[in-house]
């Protein structure tokens, strides 16, 4: 089993029943922040024990590493307004109505950092049309550095699909897997995804399919559609002893190459040894080159998880199979690309896409939903 990032799997849950928190002033946070708190507490963000302080943020922004030299590419920030009645040295009770979260934040440091600099370094753009930049610019003007402890997290939809890194590590161990490849997704599977997953799985012991669940934009597939379609695919076409799916609740930042490293770190914490990185991983629009998210891995000899790079793939009518540009000699005119847009358009009309694109059973599962798309 690979070591957790930074050598320690963080576990920051309150261990004793206590009433001493009941009188504490509460501070309502949004669901994205609540998910960050849960990811810190459960070890998904190991070795973070809280939100970044100034030194760590500065180091992440300029060096892609925490101040102790551990690779870390995406700032995990807690924002605060000047008007908020919070000062350094306070311990505040964080709450979130939607998730029923309760956690303590030890306010060690309140600081400011130029958001434009963060945007330039993390996203390589200050364009507010970039969704990650917009999220950053919408944050309040001050940040808090400090450790958290989770007191309570309420029951949520899809909890039965939600495993912590401690749980996946024990699960992989029980299955006897030594080498595990992780696949991240935000869509139901088409044949191209299956090709990538099974190609990678051929060389390791097991595959960990890890869809990101959470805030979506109109037109995206609903979370339950993604999960059910994967269940169908795995039931019909995967070996149970070689495949596992659980969800990851975190927001996409669309930071392209930097986010690819972040995604790999989270999967390392789940116990994976390999991570699949596709074309334009975590990209949006034309902000990043198609293979920038591959190149960045060269900067991290100490990442502790091996990237598995895939270039674009398509179905070749001559080969009669899914191919990539390394293995197929035939002209582009024989290639049919796996167009998510095209598949979505067909499903929107209630039509089953061709079996060259998507498994019939997967398409039929999607079509059992009256409204498979976010409106």
């Amino acid at each position, binding site marked *: 089993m690979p070591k957790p990032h930074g050598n320690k*799997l963080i576990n920051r849950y309150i261990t004793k029943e206590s009433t001493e928190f009941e009188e504490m002033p509460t501070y309502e946070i949004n669901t994205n922040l609540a998910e960050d708190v849960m990811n810190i507490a459960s070890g998904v963000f190991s070795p973070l024990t809280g939100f970044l302080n100034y030194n760590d943020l500065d180091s992440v922004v300029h060096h892609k590493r925490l101040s102790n030299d551990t690779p870390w590419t995406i700032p995990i920030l807690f924002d605060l307004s000047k008007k908020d009645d919070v000062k350094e040295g306070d311990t505040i009770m964080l709450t979130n109505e939607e998730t029923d979260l309760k956690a303590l934040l030890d306010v060690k440091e309140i600081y400011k950092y130029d958001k434009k600099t963060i945007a330039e370094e993390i996203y390589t753009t200050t364009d507010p049309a970039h969704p990650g930049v917009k999220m950053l610019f919408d944050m309040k003007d001050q940040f808090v550095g400090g450790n958290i402890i989770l007191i309570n997290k309420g029951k949520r939809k899809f909890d039965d699909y939600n495993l912590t890194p*401690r749980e996946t590590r024990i699960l992989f161990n*029980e299955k006897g897997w030594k080498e595990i490849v992780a696949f991240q997704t935000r869509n139901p599977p088409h044949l191209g995804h299956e090709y990538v997953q099974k190609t990678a799985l051929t060389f390791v012991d097991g595959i960990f399919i890890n869809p990101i669940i959470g805030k979506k934009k109109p037109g995206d597939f609903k979370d339950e559609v993604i999960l059910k379609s994967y269940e169908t695919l795995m039931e019909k076409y995967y070996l149970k002893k070689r495949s596992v799916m659980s969800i990851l609740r975190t927001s996409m930042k669309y930071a392209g190459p930097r986010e690819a490293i972040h995604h790999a770190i989270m999967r390392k914490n789940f116990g994976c040894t390999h991570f699949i990185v596709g074309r334009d991983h975590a990209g949006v629009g034309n902000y990043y080159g198609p293979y920038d998210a591959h190149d960045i891995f060269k900067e991290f000899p*100490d990442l502790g998880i091996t990237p598995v790079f895939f270039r674009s793939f398509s179905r070749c009518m001559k080969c009669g199979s899914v191919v990539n540009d390394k293995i197929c000699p035939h002209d582009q005119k024989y290639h049919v690309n796996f167009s998510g847009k095209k598949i979505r358009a067909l499903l929107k009309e209630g039509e089953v896409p061709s079996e060259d694109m998507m498994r019939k059973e997967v398409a039929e599962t999607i079509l059992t939903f009256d409204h498979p798309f976010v409106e």
Partner: protein
Amino acid sequence: MAEENETKKYTTISIPTPLANKIKKRIEGTGFNSLSSYVTYVLREVISNVEEDEHEEAFSKDDEEKVKERLRALGYLD
């Protein structure tokens, strides 16, 4: 916030000149733009391997049993 927090600093390390010259030759055209960036890269790789050997999983037997129970209940384990 990372558990161990150190302020980012650079320091100077002495290595034998012939070795430095060999490295300079070796990194020509490789994308490493300096002797320092190459040495940093190699040391990070070496140190991370040593740290890997030092890591120990810290699950108590009780914890592990509880987790396995949940995994069985959810159908992840038979």
